[in-house]
């Protein structure tokens, strides 16, 4: 139902212009202002540059990753500053502990090289926030996985259960073994240890994922991922111990021998939505100011850049209004 043309808004949808790069438009019946709050001058430019993750921080600032840095944008003052700078690699995702006052931990995923490089690793680190100097320190490397270019996974989230959840991409159809971190949603304690209630004695929470790049927890506790598929992109409700189909099923399409398909059919957890708009990050929106956004908001990458708004059912585990292009 709803595919808002925000990706191309700056080219064709603008109906009025204000100073300071504010564009006025409508989303459904709601009038909105669209403003560039951090512009290109903050970023190096080029194929592998720029922010990969946005996170609303415990200091009521917008935290964003910026290649070798984590920056913050203060919406009150408009000031950008830097809270972390690393010497090498490409910082992808950032998340803060949800009891930050008592556990001042910041989790980041970082590519060991350029993001779109081949044969490099994505690493998960925990940093500790030092309020005295307002910066991150004491990096603790927790785990890593291999990836090929943009086929990376890499989104990190701290759940309501205070566990850390990380999405990872599969890597050349590896055979799954204990502590193989590829193609998974991983779950770990804030200190990096393995929770006793994980479905098996490693970080694995779910498996059979191709390239999940978005993860969000809904207000009722459901965990939903967005997954960049081969031909069919997915939204999945994450339930522990489940296999989500890859590399037998892509969406609900099986591309393996029929006997393999029939076998996997009996236990695969299928998506709640299948589309062809490569997704990256997702978030939950239920604020009354833009009712048209209620549900899951998805950042679409690739050729169909834009935002998608999925309306969910009351149980927040099923899509009841599917976006269209």
């Amino acid at each position, binding site marked *: 139902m709803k595919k808002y043309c*925000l*990706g191309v808004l*700056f080219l064709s949808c603008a*109906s*009025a212009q*204000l100073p300071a790069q504010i564009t*006025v438009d*409508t*989303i459904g*019946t*709601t*009038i*909105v*202002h*669209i*403003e*560039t*709050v*951090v*512009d*290109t001058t903050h*970023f190096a*430019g*080029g*194929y*592998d*540059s*720029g*922010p*990969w*993750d*946005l*996170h*609303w921080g415990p200091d*009521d600032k*917008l935290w*964003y990753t910026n290649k070798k840095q984590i920056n913050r*944008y203060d*919406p009150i003052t408009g000031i950008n500053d830097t809270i972390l700078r690393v010497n090498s690699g490409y910082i992808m995702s950032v998340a803060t502990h949800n009891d930050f006052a008592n556990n001042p931990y910041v989790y980041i995923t970082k590519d060991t090289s350029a993001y779109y490089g081949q044969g490099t690793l994505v690493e998960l680190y925990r940093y500790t926030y030092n309020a005295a100097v307002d910066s991150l320190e004491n990096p603790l490397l927790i785990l890593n996985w291999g990836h090929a270019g943009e086929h990376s996974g890499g989104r990190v989230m701290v759940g309501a259960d205070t566990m850390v959840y990380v999405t990872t991409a599969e890597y050349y159809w590896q055979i799954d073994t204990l502590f193989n971190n590829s193609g998974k949603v991983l779950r770990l304690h804030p200190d990096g240890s393995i929770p006793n209630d994980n479905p098996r004695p490693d970080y694995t929470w779910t498996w059979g994922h191709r390239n999940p790049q*978005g993860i969000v927890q809904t207000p009722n506790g459901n965990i939903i991922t967005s997954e960049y598929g081969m031909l069919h992109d997915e939204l999945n409700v994450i339930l522990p111990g489940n296999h989500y189909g890859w590399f037998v099923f892509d969406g609900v399409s099986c591309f393996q021998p029929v006997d393999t398909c029939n076998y996997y059919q009996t236990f695969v957890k299928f998506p709640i939505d299948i589309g062809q708009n490569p997704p*990256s*990050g*997702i*978030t*939950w*929106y239920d*604020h*009354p*100011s*833009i009712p048209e*956004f209620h549900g899951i*908001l*998805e*950042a*679409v*990458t690739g050729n169909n*850049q*834009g*935002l998608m708004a999925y309306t969910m059912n009351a149980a927040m585990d099923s899509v009841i209004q599917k976006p269209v292009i």
Partner: protein
Amino acid sequence: MRDVVAAPNGTVYFIAYDRFKPRINSISNPLFSSLNQQTFIHPLQIYPNPGTDQFQVSRKNNNALSTVRILNSLGSEVLRYEQVKFPFTVNSSELVTGIYFVQVTNDRETRIQKWIKASK
């Protein structure tokens, strides 16, 4: 786009043009705070809507003198009337076509509703 996040105040931030001209944009409803402060029990009656050169605003069961403001889509005031009794006719002949908001306020209450000026 690479990511999107919602702030507690309802503003959405998203990364646009992530590969070549990356920037972070916000989306917000500039009229939400006004719309959220509706205290009238009954909505305004605005007719015709959409309209052209004039439209009538009336209120049910309330004859208190009020201020009527017409705001454009940017939230800026384009017309203002003081000490108004209802029903009240607004002369909209000088307004360009587009979306407007009618805000009615008296000592105790306020309400804002959308009105559209159509082309003739």
